[in-house]
């Protein structure tokens, strides 16, 4: 019932927004409705939504990074490892300077650690971008190489073990909630979504990213410096990955070089699910954000059926990705036919 009124209210809004986004919303409501009916007690609880909010933010952020890279015509497979590298660096920094420090300095050290992580993320991302733009290496290959590199660096600085022992107050970001309702990590995700939406829709850089992704050659002839645009794109991806790394550090109270390696696949799945064209040029941030929510809701729902093995999830994600690709393809084909007739 609640879903019906929600769609009804948005009817005017619907005609303006992207058809893909509205399709995704419909999918979301179907899953939501199914969950509410099948598992009313456990699904429709505050705790469940808070868990969903907490769990989606880490890979949700990385998916946003992968998404804007894909819009620019590339891909970023290194997000997970940038996140881990940033998490480990921040943890080591805090371990070194904050463990015995008084409360006042501890705050400063924590801020320093966050800035350090963000800086490392930006540098890693910019390095990816530089290789993609300046050396003209396909993005997939660049990030395939740098992911080994960043993971390697993370293993070296952490000596291959789990880094833990960060100040208690830092873990609030990952576990605490605003007014006891909204998890802080979800808030970070939400703010990033808003910021990136604004960037992609209303700034020159956003428009340029779309242009470069649509047709790099014409963008160049239109006077755009493709190299700068691409470096900035990958830098943003590195930055949001750093945020993801910080969130996972504070949630788990530890960081590890090979944490979350399955997220790479999930991020690509989300981005394609969210309507980004794998060849670049189209797609939007809100689509990706809804894709994240759909994936986590479905995942939490699956968890409520104990007889479904966790490993089936791999199968479901893979199948879902292909089905969505095919569906989008068919819908686009029909759309083109309609336009041409």
């Amino acid at each position, binding site marked *: 019932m609640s879903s019906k009124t929600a769609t009804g209210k948005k009817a005017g809004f619907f005609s303006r927004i992207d058809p893909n986004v509205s399709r995704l919303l419909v999918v979301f409501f179907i899953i939501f409705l199914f969950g509410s009916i099948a598992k009313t007690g456990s699904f429709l609880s505050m705790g469940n939504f808070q868990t969903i909010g907490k769990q989606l933010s880490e890979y949700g952020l990385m998916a946003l990074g992968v998404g804007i890279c894909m819009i620019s015509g590339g891909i970023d497979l290194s997000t997970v490892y940038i996140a881990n590298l940033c998490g480990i660096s921040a943890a080591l920094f805090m371990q070194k300077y904050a463990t015995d420090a008084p409360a006042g300095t501890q705050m400063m050290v924590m801020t320093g650690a966050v800035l350090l992580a963000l800086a490392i993320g930006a540098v890693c991302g910019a390095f990816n971008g530089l290789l993609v733009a300046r050396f003209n290496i396909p993005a997939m290959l660049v990030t395939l190489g*740098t992911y080994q590199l960043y993971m390697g660096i993370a293993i070296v600085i952490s000596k291959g073990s789990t880094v833990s022992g960060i100040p208690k107050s830092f873990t609030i970001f990952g576990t605490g909630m605003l007014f006891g309702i909204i998890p802080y990590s979800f808030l970070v995700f939400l703010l990033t979504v808003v910021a990136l939406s604004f960037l992609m829709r209303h700034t020159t850089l956003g428009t340029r990213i779309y242009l470069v992704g649509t047709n790099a050659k014409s963008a160049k002839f239109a006077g755009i410096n493709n190299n700068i645009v691409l470096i900035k794109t990958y830098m943003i991806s590195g930055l949001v990955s750093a945020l993801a790394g910080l969130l996972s550090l504070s949630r788990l109270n530890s960081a590890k070089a090979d944490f979350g390696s399955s997220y790479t696949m999930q991020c690509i799945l989300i981005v394609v699910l969210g309507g980004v064209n794998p060849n670049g040029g189209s797609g939007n941030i809100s689509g990706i954000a809804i894709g994240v929510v759909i994936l986590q809701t479905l995942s939490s729902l699956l968890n409520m059926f104990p007889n479904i093995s966790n490993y089936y999830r791999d199968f479901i994600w*893979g199948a879902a990705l292909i089905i969505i690709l095919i569906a989008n393809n068919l819908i686009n084909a029909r759309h083109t036919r309609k336009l041409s007739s």
Partner: protein
Amino acid sequence: MKQTVKKLTSRAESYVFVIILVLSAVIQLRSGLFYSNNNIVDIVRSMIVPLIYALCAYLAFVSTGPDVSFPLIAALSSYLATEIALKTGYDGPVILVFIIAVFFGLLMGAVNGLIIVKFNFPSLIVTLATSSMYSGILFGVFEASRMDLPENMYNYGKASLLSVKNATTGLGSTLPTTFLIVVGLYIAAYLVLNHTMAGRGVFALGGDEVSAQRAGFNTKLIRFGVFTVNGGLAAIAGVCYTVMSLKYLPAEFAGGEMVVIAAVILGGTRMSGGFGTLTGCVLGTMLLTMVTNSLILVGIPVYFQKVFIGAFIVIGTALSASSGRKRKSAGKGVAANV
């Protein structure tokens, strides 16, 4: 003569070969253990499975683009073959186990090929998705776990072509019979790619799809064929890996694709398609196997391994990308030299 020199210096393989020589010399000087009989046999032994994978990655790149599903196809098809052999108590020649695995591998490869050809989707995304599905089937539906091999497979894995023992260190090493399979596959690949119309078509398709079509190649069939064959090759690699480890180890397969892809690209195969050599595949694989196997001989800690591999990929691809651009601007066509 001058032309040969020029040709050699313009190719990625030559650089890889030089790096291999230098690296091996450094390792030899620092440890004195590189050019020992057991180390050489060890390296060849560790190259067997990656070399078969490299063929998959190579064929995919030359014709279309990346294929990342081969480790999971290897895992699932070798699981099915081993399980069938165990359940039926089959105790005949191992070749039948290979045939069963190849059958399933071809099937899975055909799924990849069908989706890629029918809808023209990027091969990376499709193979990522299908490998996730195959992983779900392997661990979810079949609940695969470590298992012992039937006697015939175990004995096949134990059998050796060559067995050496280092006189000074006392360390021994054996070359398994699976080595012959790799040699056979590479000879077959060489003959098919260079002496058949279909093989020419693979390069033509990767070089320029439209031109290949105009020239009369059935591009869809070739692309479908490449991904199907890749599935079969992956299955062979999976059974080889299983018999060589003398146990079926489901969790060891995933993640093997990245290093293989790196090796193939280092060997000069172009990501944009249409160009690459089998020699390059072998040399690239050899280099990365040496890095993984022998860094420890020089006293570099194991945890530096990833840094080295990553650096090799980044630097190697940057070099080959820039030389590729030069070649393009010089106006030379693509060729299928081996």
